[in-house]
């Protein structure tokens, strides 16, 4: 658990972070979003003390981080940045082994861990273990960057716009993989981005920042349907609002349980915007749904996509 209590950071006369308080729960995927200069990266970098806080307290599992040695604190957290920052003179293996090496893990354990992580990030260990960063594509480099951050099994993963510099296809596949890794490991993730689609897609909760202040901290659904300020509404945007709204709920949320219909079924965890796309593609208004074990789980109707139970229209006017 990460707690910020009235944390302030000034650079000269400029207040980068202004009395911010929030809590990130154990295992949560928390996204920090905001315009540039909103203080989101500063907040992230205060968690591992790359930037010291001027006022207030930052606690991790109840322990004030000011009482810990910065190096020890950082070795317990993964850290991924936009420009990756792999060590260019080290092989992929040695890069990933950075923190386990600092922690003094035995060689065999480090080697096994590197193999495991390369496989986790879809990089063939035989091919990439001995490669140097400059031999990799941007997407592969960031995969190694994520693997390096996860190496010592940190309970907290800090990510500063990690996928912003990647092409859309690579970005989407890394987002999917990160989601899967988060679900599987239960690591607490704090993820900075300026891309609301990415935030809606990944976050359990999204904290919106502006001018060093926390404007709103809510679930993706609430960010979409109950924006706390015009800024939040602008960040979400009017364009394709309906599809974004559909994307934060799954087929399982809206399926009519008792019905059944023939056809190729959709998995219950499919986001609703995919279901809509599927209906258009198949020219149908009803789709069968199956649960995680492949058992029938009802039918999804087009009308249920359009008329949800709550928060179905653009807040503050027509799109």
């Amino acid at each position: 658990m990460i707690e910020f209590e009235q944390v302030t950071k000034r650079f000269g006369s400029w207040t980068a972070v202004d009395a911010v308080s929030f809590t990130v729960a154990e295992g949560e995927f928390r996204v920090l979003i905001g315009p540039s200069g909103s203080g989101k990266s500063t907040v992230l970098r205060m968690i591992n003390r790359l930037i010291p806080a001027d006022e207030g307290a930052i606690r991790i599992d109840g322990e004030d981080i000011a009482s810990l040695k910065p190096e020890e604190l950082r070795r317990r957290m993964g850290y991924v940045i936009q420009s990756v920052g792999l060590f260019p003179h080290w092989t992929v293996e040695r890069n990933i082994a950075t923190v386990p090496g600092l922690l003094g893990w035995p060689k065999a354990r480090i080697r096994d861990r590197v193999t495991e992580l390369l496989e986790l990030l879809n990089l063939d260990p035989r091919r990439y273990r001995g490669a140097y960063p400059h031999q990799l594509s941007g997407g592969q480099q960031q995969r190694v960057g994520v693997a390096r951050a996860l190496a010592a099994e940190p309970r907290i993963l800090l990510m500063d716009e990690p996928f912003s510099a990647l092409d859309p296809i690579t970005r989407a596949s890394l987002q999917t993989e990160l989601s899967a890794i988060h679900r599987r490991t239960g690591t607490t993730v704090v993820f900075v981005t300026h891309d609301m689609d990415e935030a809606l897609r990944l976050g359990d909760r999204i904290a919106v920042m502006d001018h060093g202040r926390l404007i709103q901290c809510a679930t993706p659904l609430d960010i979409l349907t109950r924006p706390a300020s015009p800024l939040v509404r602008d960040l979400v945007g009017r364009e394709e609002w309906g599809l974004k709204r559909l994307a934060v709920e799954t087929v399982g949320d809206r399926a009519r349980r008792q019905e059944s219909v023939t056809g190729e079924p959709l998995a219950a965890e499919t986001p609703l915007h995919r279901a809509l796309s599927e209906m258009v593609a198949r020219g149908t208004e009803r789709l069968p749904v199956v649960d995680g074990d492949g058992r029938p789980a009802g039918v999804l109707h087009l009308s249920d996509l359009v008329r949800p139970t709550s928060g179905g229209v653009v807040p503050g006017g027509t799109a």
Partner: protein
Amino acid sequence: MTGAGMAPRDFLTDRLMLGLVVLVALVLGMPSLKPLFATLFPRLDRPLYEAESFVSLTLDHMALVGASSLAAIMLGGGAGIAVTRPWGREFRGLLETVATMGQTFPPVAVLALAVPVMGFGPEPALIALTLYALLPVVENTVAGLDGVPAPVLDSARGLGMGPAEVLFRVELPLAAPVILAGIRTAVIINVGTAAIASTVGAKTLGLPIIVGLNGSNQAYVIQGALIVAALAVVIDAGFDRLAGWLTRWSQR
């Protein structure tokens, strides 16, 4: 390229090996060139410098260059590292000024000033050469460390490396090619400047040159200069090899 499988052609195009062969041949074989110099300079009574053996002159020359370069690397490298740390940043301007002044002083002037204090011999030469080598080492150490990409430093710290680990595992290895280029410049300059140090009584390859200039004996001058030049070529080629080895990761 490995030594074991080296073809004759590789051997001839390898600057380091070729330079070494020429250097050793010149140092050991100079006495046997006496008839040649006698033919070239028929008016000279003594066409070969024989007061000291060229072997001992070369070894002394190399020792002086080695000691002064080592001192410059320790002092200049240490100072360059210090002013790129957070606690030493304020002294950066001062250090660069001092190093530039060291370079601007003509070596002969430093030698002349050092003699009254330290007397004749290798000591004033050592001081002058060290001062002279300082600037390129300081400049390149600072430039090399400045050139380490900020994201690499950010992630090194963010992953939990301490200041010493960041310096020795990340900054110095990445700055090494630039620092080495500075050391290379310093050493090559010193190979030439060490010859002048003979004027204050240091025994170097400059001795036959100085004696030759004083006594209008061009043969002496040529003999000393040839070996100095060969030595410079060998050292330069050696640095080339070392630079390639240091950046071998980037050539894959």
